[in-house]
Each structure stands twice: as C-alpha cells, then as structure tokens.
C-alpha cells in the first residue's frame, strides 16, 4: 500500500458540482454493469473488491464537508458489496459518514458498479469494473493466464501519479475567450415518475449491420446513433403535433483523454452540444447526418474544447465563487445548474464505446451495460456501450411514457436489424 502524505484530496473541476446538485430525482449516479454466464459468487466478489480497491486508492475515500467545498478523505475501511434491490442509479447518502461514493452490486449473473459522478466519469469506472472482473476471475481460477493491456489494472501494479491529477487544471489556458452561451432547449412534455423510480429500456442490437450503415455514410457509430436520435425526436414532434418553442439540443460528453495525453482516473470530459431547430422545417435523415458529421468535426478539436475547459476552470478559480460557504453553494448550485446546463439540453447521449477484455476471460462475460444518471431536467437520457458483437443502447427515463424509445427502436427495426428489448419496468 502506498503511503499518503496527506489524507485527503480536492474534487476535480467537474466533480465539484455534483454533490451540491444531488437530490432525489437528480442522483448524479450512473451504472456500468457486466453480466456473466454464471451466477455471481458474492464472497469471491467481496474478496476481489478488497484486493483491487488497493490499486485504486483514490476511490477508497469518503466524501466530507469542508467550509467552502466538499473533499474526499482516504479511509481504511473497505466497501461492502450489496445485493441489488432498488431501482438503478439511485441517489447515495455518500455525504454520510463511512459511505463510499460508489456501490458494487450483484444480482444473479450481473455485477454492477454504481458510482457518483463527483469522483469519476465513464472511462474511469470502466477501467475499475474491468479490473474488478479480472481479479474476480483470477480468484475463481488460479491458473488463469492473463495478458497485459486492454486498460486493466492489476492489484499489484504500481500506481501512476498521473492517475490522480485534475486534468482540467493541467490543460487550463488562462487568456482565451469563453465558448458561446446556450439558450433554452426543447424538453419532453412527459409526466414525471414518483420519486425513487427510474425506468430502463435496453435495446440489444448486433453491431455489425449498424456499423455498416454508419460506414456507408462515412460517420462514426456515435454520430450515426446521434442522428437516429435526432430523427426520432423529429418524428415524435411531427406525429404528436408538439408545438416547438425551442431547438432540440443534445448533450454529448466527449472523453478528453483522446485529445489530451492524460491518464487521469478522475473526471475528464466536456459536453458538446449539437442542435437542430425543427421549426425550420423537416430534415431528411441525410441532412441530419451531414450536420452532425460537420458539427462533430468542428467541435472536437483541442482549440474548441480548450474554451470549455477555460470557462469551467475559470469559474472554479474565481475568488468570489471560492469564498461562498458550502451551504450557500448547495442552495445556489442546483438553480444555476438548471439554468445554465440542464435547461439548455433536450437530452443526452453518451457512448462508452467498445469494451474489450483479455481473450482468456472474454467468453466468461456475456455483456456490459451502461445506464445514464437520472435527472429531472433531462428526463430521458441514453447510455451506449458495446461488447463483442453486440451494442447495448439503454434509455434511462424518469417517465412512464415510452414514445421516444418506441420510435427509436422501430427505426432500427425498419432497417431490418434485429432488436431485443429488456426493461426493468413492471
């Protein structure tokens, strides 16, 4: 185990926001899960977690309250796995003593990590889950031969100092302009669920035909799905004669580790916001695709992204913001977050990409799934992940209405691609 010179660390630039805006319906907790082919052995899973958490000391923490900001304090305790009983991605009382900012759940053949966005993003948790799975299988079968790579940490690997860096601060440039401001976006007029309920609809789709369709249009899979989602919303608006007052704006988080050479295991993403105003007329699918292709190409550049990093870090560094006591921040931030963030998006789509595992255990895992965090401001969100030959598209929704999901999956079905639907709805 490593010796820590200090027993606490600051939340990163993006993470600082999340504990303050957490409420019953805005949990800021998301889930990445893996389904195995065999029943999960809870005792082994607990041992695996105990072993692997030492490799992730920056996750072995409790959230604490400072006078001005929250902070993470290292703890000697180990997280305890739980059997899944509640709806997915529910809020955590991680501000309470001795609770971790994540939970490891198991249910039949499924192992899930639900983690607060305050500590890391999708990339971080995927590495964590993969490492946990590897440790679990290593305990299950002692003479497992494992190759390196695949973004997996072994429990005895040395810890790279770069994993704990706040990359936002590292790549912050002081004297550059802010990005343009967003305006209010279209929102789905659906009735909210009761508190504490979160509905998931996952579509399981073979990845090959989808990739082929994307390749035909010279776009990436994420861009293709994004276009499908825009088209879905257009169809919903037209078929239900919804009166539009605002453009449709999508929130697409971009993993910045591909743009900047950082190994951080904490948050490092920026949301870009493609938007289409359907008041201008009906868009053909090709028009939508063209727009998205160009938009993504223009947006995902270091120059453009640096403006967003600049704005976020500048706000955090402002002396005025820093000097506001935490309890006032907790009152103000939910309002500001709604005004400057959620209100300006219609929905969000987040793709964790293809997950790979070492050959020796690849066939012990059936699939991975990714559920986005529920939020009152964006009641329907999309989480996408692919594993082996399938892609898993999960709609997380705070409403009983399934109109959007229905149109979306029927669209894929009409392309003659098989879709299997799973849900936690009753």
């Amino acid at each position, binding site marked *: 185990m490593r010796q820590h010179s200090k027993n606490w660390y600051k939340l990163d630039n993006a993470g600082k926001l999340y504990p303050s805006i957490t409420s019953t319906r805005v949990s800021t907790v998301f889930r990445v899960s893996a389904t195995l082919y065999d029943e999960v052995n809870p005792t082994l899973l607990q041992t695996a977690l105990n072993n692997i958490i030492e490799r992730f000391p920056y996750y072995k923490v409790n959230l604490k309250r400072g006078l001005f900001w929250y902070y993470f304090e290292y703890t000697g305790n180990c997280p305890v796995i739980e059997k899944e009983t*509640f709806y997915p991605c529910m*809020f955590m009382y991680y501000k309470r003593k001795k609770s971790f900012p994540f939970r490891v759940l198991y249910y039949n053949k499924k192992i899930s990590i639900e983690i607060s966005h305050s500590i890391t993003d999708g990339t971080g948790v995927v590495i964590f889950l993969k490492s946990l799975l590897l440790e679990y299988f290593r305990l299950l079968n002692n003479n497992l031969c494992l190759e390196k790579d695949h973004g997996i940490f072994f429990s005895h690997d040395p810890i790279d100092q770069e994993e704990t860096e706040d990359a936002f601060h590292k790549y912050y440039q002081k004297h550059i302009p802010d990005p343009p401001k967003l305006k209010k976006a279209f929102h789905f007029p659906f009735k909210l669920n009761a508190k504490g309920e979160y509905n998931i609809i996952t579509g399981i789709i073979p990845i090959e035909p989808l990739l082929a369709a994307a390749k035909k249009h010279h776009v990436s899979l994420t861009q293709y799905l994004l276009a499908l989602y825009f088209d879905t919303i257009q169809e919903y608006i037209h078929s239900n004669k919804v009166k539009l007052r605002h453009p449709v704006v999508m929130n697409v988080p971009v993993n910045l580790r591909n743009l900047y050479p950082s190994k951080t295991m904490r948050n490092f993403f920026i949301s870009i916001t493609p938007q289409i105003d359907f008041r201008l007329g009906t868009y053909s699918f090709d028009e939508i695709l063209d727009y998205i292709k160009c938009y993504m190409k223009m947006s995902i550049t270091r120059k453009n992204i640096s403006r967003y990093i600049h704005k976020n870090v500048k706000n955090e560094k402002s002396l005025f913001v820093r000097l506001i006591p935490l309890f006032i921040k907790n009152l103000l931030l939910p309002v500001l977050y709604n005004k400057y963030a959620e209100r300006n998006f219609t929905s969000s789509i987040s793709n964790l990409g293809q997950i790979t595992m070492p050959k020796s255990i690849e066939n012990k895992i059936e699939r991975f799934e990714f559920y986005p965090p529920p939020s009152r401001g964006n009641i329907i969100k999309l989480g996408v992940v692919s594993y082996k030959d399938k892609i898993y598209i999960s709609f997380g929704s705070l409403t009983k209405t399934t109109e959007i999901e229905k149109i979306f999956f*029927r669209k894929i079905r009409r392309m003659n691609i098989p879709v299997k639907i799973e*849900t936690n709805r009753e």
Partner: protein
Amino acid sequence: MPYCPKCGVEIDYTIKNCPLCTFPIPKIDEDTNPISTENKFPHPENIYYEELLKMKNQAFFAISILIFSAVLVLMTIISIFKVSQLAITYSIISVISAWFYIFLFFGYIRSKYYSILALGFVTTCLTYGLDNVDKEITWFYSYALHIIVLSVLILLLLLYLYNRSKLKNQFVFIPAHLCIGISLFSAALECILDFQANRAIQLSWSLIVFIVLMSIALILIGLYYKLPDRMKEKIKRTLHI
C-alpha cells in the same frame, strides 16, 4: 423468442406486454425453447420511501427523548421545589400533547381520515386537561368541545371533497374547497361564540366572509363546469391580443 408484432422487437419470455408499445405479446410454446428465463432485474424497491422513513424515525426518536426529558425535568421541579404547581401542570399537559401532535404530523397513521379524528381526540384531551388543571371546568364544554367537533367535521368534509376531485383541475378545486371550508367554519364559529355569550344568534362578520368566499368558490367551480362554448368564444374574441 417472443416478439412484439407491432414493433418487431424481441422480448423475454417473462414479459406479457411490449415494453415499447404495451401491445400484448402473443404466447408461444415455451417447451420448444429450452432457454431458461430468469429475471435480469430484481423486483425493484423504491429507495426514496425507505430513506424517508428512516430519517423520519430518527427525527421522531430524537423528539421523543427531548419531550420525555422535558416532562422528567418538570416533574422533578414539582417534587423538589413545590412551587407554582399550576403553571407546571399546564406545561406538562402541553408538552405531552405536543408529542401526540408530532406523532400525527409525521403521518404514522396511514389513513388521513383517522388522522383527523385522532387530531380531534388529542385536542379534546388537551383542552379538557388545560381546563381541568384548577379542578373546575369553565370553558371546555361551552366552547372548546363545540369548536373541536366543528373543525373536525369541516376537515373531514374538505378531505373527502379533495379526494373526490383529485383527478380534476387542482388550480380550481383546492382554492374552491378552501373557500368553502373557511366560510363554513367562520359562520359556525360565530354561531357558537354568539350563542354562548348572548344565548342568541346574530351573525355579523362571518356573514361577510361567508358570502365573499362562497361566491368565489361557486364562481370557480361554475366556470370550470358550465361555461358554455359560446361564452368562452365571446371572452376569447373580446380579450384576444
């Protein structure tokens, strides 16, 4: 695998209606498909109510201890100092009934109707106790009991009306019912006060309240139910911007 004829998507055996369009899934013979179907999700519980109850119980426990110690302190004061028994008895009665009120306020009784009845009962005990401290009943029978019975009846009526109109427009029905409740209460209250004071009933202020609030309520409900389309159109025509 079963599939939805409308959406064309495959679905697990355990699901009866299509999760996308709620269309009933046609049954297929399960024997032909040996694939076992197990639940991918637990029957989900709602964490919100559980956490809420936990917090409520903690708060109630803390309050109970506070009240218990307050009563203990007051008893000790009586037994040791033997001073101004009257004032302290008042305090003890109030503190104990405060505990009952908090119990009811926290919603430990499920049915709202029983809650209201219990509220009336606790208030009756409290007022009787307060009046009885000097071993002489002066105002309990003449005023308190009547007013309590009256309030309970009106609250029950309001709750009943609220439950019945729950599915209709809340912006119309909640204010309308509140108006009805207050106007009934003020009228009846003045009756009681007048009768006990002068043995005669002559309404004055409550009449104004009654007329004003009742007409507001009636207008609201009337507008909601019976505004002919012709009238609606006329209003739209005159007021359109």
